């Protein structure tokens, strides 16, 4: 009898029924001893984290409603698109080790029809993530629910409009970054005095359509090293589809913030059957400028170069994923002015070079991050 079935059997039937013969009685005793042993070991495994989880929290973190609001004008090839979005983030800490977090996106994209008339367009809404996190130990956090797919760094860390340096998305952003539904193990810890390791491994089975039995299944992981001394991070990502052709995708990322220069340099590369490409971006805070010091301290200038190569999918499929249907190169230059904490004005100019033609892309707008406590917080 398989072990799992034996345990199920033991728990399902009362002992009086089970222990009708000497043989069964002896086997039941062995199973009871084994069960007690396993329970003891489980207690040893989970006991330390449970006991820490029950420790009273002197700070009592308060639930927070955060998020960002942005309104932008994107003028691409002479066509103006007004993009207004609200991205609320809800954070609910429970006890000392639990966190429920969610982010939704409400976005309106309005354009004037080619034949003239008032601006109009779709208003979309969706949940980017709704997850439960359990910080099991300094080395491990367990996550379940819908979560941002940890493929590269832009999707997880740099996507919010108040964080990103340039508002137009990188060309490779749609590659393997759709939200995942499933479970994830992740964490970050020092491997020695000079390096921290961070990792994430996940499995996802996302339902396709309402009431559909179809699902999109994949597994993947990301691992990176952060060197606090030189402030350098390098890492790689991998994802494997668990259906159809079971294809692999992989990516690399890096970030560097030299201590002596207010420069933020980042880059990503991604390759999959949907397409491949890279972007490299540098943002420089003008705090070292010798003129208009007050204004310069609040100003970032940024430049980004990127390239995208189409993959094995059709142009229509690429467009439906948000990818360029043709090979594309793009250069962007922009400026961010931080009016105050959480509020910035943006402007950028980009030039796209594609096999279907070249065109300009301008963007202007405002991005604001809000943070509202959902409870009493006391004094800062």
């Amino acid at each position, binding site marked *: 009898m398989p*072990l799992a079935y034996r345990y199920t059997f033991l728990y399902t039937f009362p002992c009086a029924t089970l222990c009708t013969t000497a043989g069964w009685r002896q086997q039941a005793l062995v199973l009871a001893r084994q069960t007690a042993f396993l329970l003891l070991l489980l207690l040893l495994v989970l006991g330390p984290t449970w006991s820490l989880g029950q420790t009273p929290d002197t700070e009592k973190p308060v639930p927070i409603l955060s998020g960002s609001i942005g309104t932008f004008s994107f003028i691409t090839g002479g066509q103006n698109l007004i993009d207004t979005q609200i991205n609320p983030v809800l954070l609910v*800490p429970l006890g*000392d080790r639990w966190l429920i977090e969610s982010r939704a996106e409400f976005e309106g994209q309005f354009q004037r029809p080619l034949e003239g008339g008032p601006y109009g367009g779709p208003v979309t809404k969706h949940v980017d993530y709704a997850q439960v996190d359990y910080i099991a130990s*300094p*080395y491990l956090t367990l996550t379940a629910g819908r979560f941002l797919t940890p493929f590269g760094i832009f999707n997880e860390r740099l996507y919010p409009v108040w964080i990103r340096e340039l508002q137009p998305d990188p060309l490779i952003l749609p590659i393997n970054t759709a939200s995942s539904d499933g479970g994830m193990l*992740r964490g970050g810890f020092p491997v020695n005095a000079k390096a921290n390791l961070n990792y994430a491994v996940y499995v996802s089975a996302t339902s396709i359509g309402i009431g559909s039995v179809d699902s999109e299944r994949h597994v993947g992981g990301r691992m990176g090293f952060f060197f*606090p001394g030189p402030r350098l991070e390098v890492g790689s990502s991998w994802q494997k589809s668990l259906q159809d052709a079971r294809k692999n995708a992989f990516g690399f990322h890096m970030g560097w913030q030299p201590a002596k220069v207010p420069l933020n340099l980042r880059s990503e590369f991604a390759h999959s059957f949907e397409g491949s490409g890279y972007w490299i971006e540098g943002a420089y805070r003008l705090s070292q400028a010798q003129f208009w010091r007050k204004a310069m301290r609040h100003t970032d200038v940024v430049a980004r170069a990127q390239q995208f190569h189409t993959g094995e999918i059709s142009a229509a499929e690429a467009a439906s994923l948000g990818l360029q249907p043709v090979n594309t190169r793009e250069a962007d230059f922009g400026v961010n002015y931080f009016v105050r904490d959480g509020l910035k004005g943006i402007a950028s100019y980009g030039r796209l070079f594609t096999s279907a033609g070249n065109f300009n892309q301008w963007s202007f707008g405002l991005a604001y991050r809000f943070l509202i406590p959902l409870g009493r917080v006391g004094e800062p």
Partner: protein
Amino acid sequence: MTQSRKMNFNLNSWLAILLFTLAIVSSLFAGSSSGGKEGAGAVVAHNSDAESMRFQGEQRFRANCGRCHAAPQKFPPRMMGTILRHMRVRATITAEDRRLILFYMTQ
């Protein structure tokens, strides 16, 4: 029957070894200095310790938070606790970094 018992023995043995290893590792991790409870950032510290923690916290704040976004203003401790728990997961910052950044941001 003998073969079945042997297989069960092997399965039990491997399960026991696995759980025992996990138990040891978990106990070691949970007892480590950085493995204290999540809210252990704003502990009461002596002046010299506090100064050192503040200095280290600022360094780690600049190294970790500056990787993605500009420095935010300081918020009340109960809000910072939530924000840093979120960032602990989102940015996979280490427990020690979180503790020191929380201390720095709540002083």
